[in-house]
């Protein structure tokens, strides 16, 4: 049985934040779960995916976040408790659905989880999704710890049903990827079937209907405000004239700082866990008890703007500070030391921090950036495209996935990236106004996610570029999740369809289509060169299973290669491919037989034919 289905209320279990969130939803009787995977939210979905194979919980990897939210909007409007998970930028994709779903509302609880990523550990930006609460008029809940995350999910479902609105549940990486002991609660029975009650004048958002629905949304927001005022998640602790208002992980840093600085007797803390709408009365009365207030929130001054406006309305003139050149930044995540230091500075508490270690005499340590795996077929494809494009002035738009790493040396393949799916649309613009040859890259899952529409645009508007679809048969970067092109029988799962990328590209009407097997270097270069020479839209599908995934399926080509004494140290293998299985020993290139995946790509580019299979 899956550990998150353990029915032992009161017992303790060590859980990752994302597991605690999934457990919270299971305890709340969630019956439908939808997602598009994205770090730092991915493990929530992974757990639901596993759990759904053991019980009647429905889970799906949807094509993208918008689809996931639309599926969820329908199940929740049949009265079924539903959760929809995504990373912060995923909510941008789903925003169109979100904004009007807020007007329509839900009948069954719907919790929309957005996992924000301050510092961008694995994201393209660090946008603060609390503003989606303001933009859409929906309530936001934000946990401060792993334990609280579990309990707050249940509260979120109840709140959603009380207000008949979706609830935004906002986490940050340090909640999703922290681990702590959690006390299990009772599991509510799942209600997996519901029914939709037809009522077009409440659900079909033509202007006349929406005008009424907006009135309803604002009334709901007033109800939400009243609940936020008395919510247990907006709590005041301590007493004293120094006020601190904080949220999320900052709460732990503040509590630790107050202990370390021994100012508990002088400090009053308002922890905001229900952050939209902000509890106006509670904040106003908190401010009245303080001489000065510091706002501790990572990201944007979301609470600060609101607190200042509440102070203005209540005629409170005390200093209220947060984001400021001398205090907190809008950049990156906070650290306990930084929070301790800023609190000490702001309130004038004597504090001598532990001196920062002088590492000026430490030699420069070679960087260890993430790299494509040994034997990754993307490396082969990048090499082949580079070869095929020799002599051309090129632009290489790229997309989001493992292959984004191709932009690093020595491959250096990747010139422009803004969002998922952009690699099929930005080439339309690049090729329209520049005379450079545009060759762009997209992975299989990203193609399904949001690449197809850009390709349709390219064919309709007769743009001129080559799209390379890197089809490794799985969503690799986020940990091998399925996508519509995946052969689900490899996972021994039935009940799934399978879409062919080649058939889709054909159906779109792309005039030049080719398929390559990137481990066959010479043939691939030739085929890619033909595609590059084509005037118009050409597509090359590079098909080879993800080498890590193949290993996990025990389908890997495991025969490693070695370098024999014919080697004349040209080092084309290392310098052009940069495969991590190579290392240098006594000025000679060697291959780590444990790491080598046996793809034989280096063997094909060695000018001396010195790379050969290792004899068993």
């Amino acid at each position, binding site marked *: 049985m899956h550990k998150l289905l353990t029915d032992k209320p009161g017992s303790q279990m060590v859980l990752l934040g994302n597991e605690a969130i999934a457990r919270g939803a299971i305890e709340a009787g969630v019956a439908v779960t939808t997602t598009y995977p994205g770090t730092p939210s991915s493990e929530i979905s992974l757990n639901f995916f596993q759990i759904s194979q053991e019980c009647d919980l429905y889970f799906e990897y949807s094509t993208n976040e918008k689809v996931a939210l639309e599926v969820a909007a329908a199940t929740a409007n049949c009265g079924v408790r539903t959760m929809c998970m995504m990373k912060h930028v995923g909510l941008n994709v789903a925003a169109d659905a979100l904004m009007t779903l807020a007007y329509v509302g839900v009948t069954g609880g719907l919790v929309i989880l957005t996992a924000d990523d301050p510092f961008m550990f*694995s994201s393209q930006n660090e946008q603060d999704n609390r503003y989606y609460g303001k933009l859409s008029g929906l309530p936001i809940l934000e946990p401060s710890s792993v334990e609280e995350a579990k309990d707050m999910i249940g509260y979120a479902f109840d709140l959603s049903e009380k207000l008949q609105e979706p609830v935004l549940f906002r986490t940050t990486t340090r909640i999703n990827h922290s681990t702590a002991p959690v006390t299990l609660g009772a599991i509510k029975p799942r209600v997996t079937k519901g029914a939709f009650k037809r009522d077009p004048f409440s659900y079909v958002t033509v202007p006349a209907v929406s005008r009424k629905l907006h009135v309803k949304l604002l009334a709901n927001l007033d109800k939400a405000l009243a609940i936020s005022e008395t919510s247990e998640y907006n709590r005041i602790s301590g007493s004293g004239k120094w006020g601190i208002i904080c949220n999320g992980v900052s709460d732990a840093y503040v509590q630790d700082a107050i202990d370390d600085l021994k100012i508990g007797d002088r400090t009053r803390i308002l922890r905001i866990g229900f952050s939209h709408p902000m509890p106006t009365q509670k904040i106003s009365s908190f401010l009245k008890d303080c001489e000065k207030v510091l706002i501790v929130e990572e990201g944007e001054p979301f609470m600060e703007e609101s607190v200042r406006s509440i102070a203005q309305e209540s005629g409170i003139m005390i200093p209220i500070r947060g984001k400021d050149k001398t205090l907190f930044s809008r950049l990156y995540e906070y650290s306990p030391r930084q929070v301790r230091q800023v609190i000490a500075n702001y309130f004038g508490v004597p504090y001598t921090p532990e001196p*920062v270690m002088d*590492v000026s005499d430490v030699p*420069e340590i070679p960087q260890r950036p993430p*790299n494509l795996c040994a034997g990754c077929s993307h490396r082969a494809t990048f090499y082949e495209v580079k070869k095929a494009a020799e002599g051309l002035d090129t632009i290489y738009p790229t997309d989001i996935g493992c292959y984004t790493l191709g932009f690093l040396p020595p491959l250096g393949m990747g010139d422009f990236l803004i969002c998922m799916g952009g690699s099929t649309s930005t080439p339309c613009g690049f090729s329209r106004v520049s005379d450079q040859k545009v060759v762009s890259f997209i992975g299989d899952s990203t193609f399904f996610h949001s690449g197809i529409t850009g390709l349709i645009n390219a064919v309709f508007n007769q743009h001129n570029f080559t799209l390379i679809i890197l089809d490794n048969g799985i969503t690799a970067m986020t940990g091998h999740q399925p996508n519509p092109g995946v052969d689900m029988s490899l996972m021994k799962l039935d009940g799934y369809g399978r879409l062919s990328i080649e058939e889709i590209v054909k159906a779109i009407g792309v005039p030049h289509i080719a398929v390559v097997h990137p481990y066959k270097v010479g043939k691939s270069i030739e085929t890619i060169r033909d595609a590059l020479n084509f005037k118009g839209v050409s597509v090359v599908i590079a098909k080879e299973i993800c080498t890590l995934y193949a290993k996990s399926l025990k389908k890997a080509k495991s025969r490693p290669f070695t370098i024999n004494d014919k080697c004349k140290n040209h080092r084309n293998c290392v310098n052009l491919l940069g495969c991590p299985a190579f290392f240098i020993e006594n000025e000679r*290139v060697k291959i780590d037989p444990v790491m080598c995946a046996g793809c034989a790509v280096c063997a094909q580019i060695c000018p001396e034919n010195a790379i050969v299979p290792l004899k068993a």
Partner: protein
Amino acid sequence: MSDTTRLIIVAVGGQGNLLASSVLGEAALLSGIPFRMSEIHGMAQRGGVVESSLVFGKAGSTIISDGEADVLVGFEPSETLRALNKCNSKTIVVTNISPLPPFTVAIGKGVYPDLNQLQSLIRAKTAKLIALDAAAMAKEAGNVMAVNIVLLGALTRTGVLPLTAETVKAAIRSKTKPAFLDVNLKAFDMGFRQNS
């Protein structure tokens, strides 16, 4: 801060530091000691650096600021050196000395630090350095992948963490696959004995 112990583990993706952290977490749970930890997942899986922070005691924070680690365990020597900014003069450092040079070295974008200089630098700047060839010991124990468990042995021996060898071994029993248990227990004992 005195009633709290802060541990940083740095490793290269694939060296098993998530398992090491989870063993320590389980051991803390068995001992009834409050703890929290934080890890960075995702891109790190692709051969990058993986850092875990473990906080034992009553603190609420799950991350450890620069200069505030009580103990640092490095699974790879150059990564131990890179994490030195997490330490202060009272920090105890445990490191594997068997290198895994990053591919940037192979393509000529950096020079791997000299292992002797690396150790003397760490020794000079911290309270104590325990350096061991965990890769060789893991191999001797019967599995090259047991580097993480060898280092857990050496870490436990320092006595910095509020965990006994017996509890950590009990946690290893509950967290590792039965097929690897004997090798792991042997690896733990080798690491534990080495550090003396």
